[in-house]
């Protein structure tokens, strides 16, 4: 039942008729979809397991919301699904340039949960990992344990940037400044740092921005957005290709605004309802056997120097 509602709503979010038809087929087949962006226009084709495009310079993986320590009905074994996700990554057949974890590594910021997660991450054949914390990773200590393990960034605040094969990557932290009743913010200090960080770059530099909570307002009533994100856009607009990746909402949503494309990712732990489709954003318990199609990983490929990034989402329902 939930699955039907979810699929229908997912369809409503797609504007392009061709994509709609394709996605219907893909939903039936339980497979992934390869998104390619050319000049800001998305096109889709089936992910059939042999889509390793020869022209891609490099690829990286986004993994999100592993919630190690969660043990409720929606997924009693999040470690098993994480292992499945890891197998999925290794099954792609390309060693990713790096792996991006967009937060909520742990469920309750407990050292043993971080230990278990880190042990599991070793299963992915990649030398470098980049992390941004989720709100579940900073409980009780403002992220001290998380930053100790995964890097403290600029002044121990968790945000940082790096360059990878001509792409400029910016990691932001938007889980430290929760205000009662409202949406979270990046804060002035971080935004001033972003402005400086991007200042010297040519407009043709591909930009990747990632943070845990969506950097666009998906659903304000549930806090699924970042209140001062518009100021961030003002620094990003001049670039020809900007890709923004987030986690937090345990489902794929996307939005295009000018040259900026925003994607949220599936998690590997448990699904959450579509925006406003339930009284609250609590874990969604789906019928037995369907959990895998709600969880997944994402591969992002740099197709050519001046072009946009290609995003491929693969659900865990795809046989490994």
């Amino acid at each position: 039942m939930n699955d039907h509602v979810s699929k229908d709503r997912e369809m409503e979010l797609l504007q392009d008729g061709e994509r709609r038809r394709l996605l219907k087929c893909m939903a039936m087949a339980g497979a992934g979809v390869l998104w390619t962006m050319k000049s800001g226009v998305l096109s889709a084709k089936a992910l059939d397991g042999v889509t390793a495009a020869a022209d891609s310079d490099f690829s990286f993986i986004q993994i999100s919301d592993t919630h190690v320590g969660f043990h409720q009905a929606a997924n009693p074994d999040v470690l098993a699904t994480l292992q499945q996700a890891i197998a999925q990554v290794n099954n792609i057949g390309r060693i990713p340039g790096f792996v991006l974890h967009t937060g909520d590594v742990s469920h309750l910021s407990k050292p043993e949960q971080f230990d278990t997660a880190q042990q599991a991450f070793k299963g992915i054949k990649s030398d470098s990992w980049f992390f941004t914390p989720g709100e579940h990773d900073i409980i009780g200590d403002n992220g001290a344990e998380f930053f100790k393990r995964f890097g403290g960034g600029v002044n121990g605040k968790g945000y940082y940037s790096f360059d990878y094969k001509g792409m400029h990557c910016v990691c932001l932290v938007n889980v430290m400044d929760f205000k009662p009743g409202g949406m979270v913010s990046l804060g002035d200090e971080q935004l001033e740092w972003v402005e400086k960080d991007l200042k010297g770059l040519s407009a043709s530099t591909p930009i990747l921005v990632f943070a845990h909570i969506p950097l666009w307002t998906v659903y304000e009533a549930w806090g699924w957005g970042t209140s001062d994100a518009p100021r961030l856009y003002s620094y990003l607009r001049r670039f020809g290709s900007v890709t923004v990746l987030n986690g937090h909402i345990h489902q794929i949503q996307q939005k295009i605004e000018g040259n900026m494309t925003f994607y949220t990712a599936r998690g590997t732990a448990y699904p959450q309802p579509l925006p406003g489709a339930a009284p609250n954003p609590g874990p969604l318990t789906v019928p037995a056997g369907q959990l895998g199609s709600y969880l997944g990983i994402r591969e992002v490929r740099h197709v050519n120097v001046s072009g946009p990034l290609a995003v491929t989402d693969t659900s865990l329902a795809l046989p490994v």
Partner: protein
Amino acid sequence: MRLLIGTLFVVVCTAGFFMSSVLADNTPAANAVQINIFNYKFDPETATVPAGTTVTWTNKDEIPHTVASSDKGFKGSSGLDTGDSYSYTFDKPGTYKYYCTLHPFMTGTIVVTAKGG
């Protein structure tokens, strides 16, 4: 008849004694208030309690929540997993607003009145 009245008197007195002892037992209970965290809500959302009351929050959701003061007015909880509780004793009268740092749309208020007020 006199015996019956006497017996009744004893029964009434005994009942009275038990009633007063029940009331006496209730007095400390009145200084403890339970707030459930369920369906992403604090229930009751507003609780009015006399100074000295110990408020206990219990998380009955599948997801962790926290109790955090909105203006550092009292010491908040760490992460409360399903079934976990957190207690705090409010000694000073005032209005204490709080929220869940994981889901900041969840807010609540404790109004602490003067003792006996």
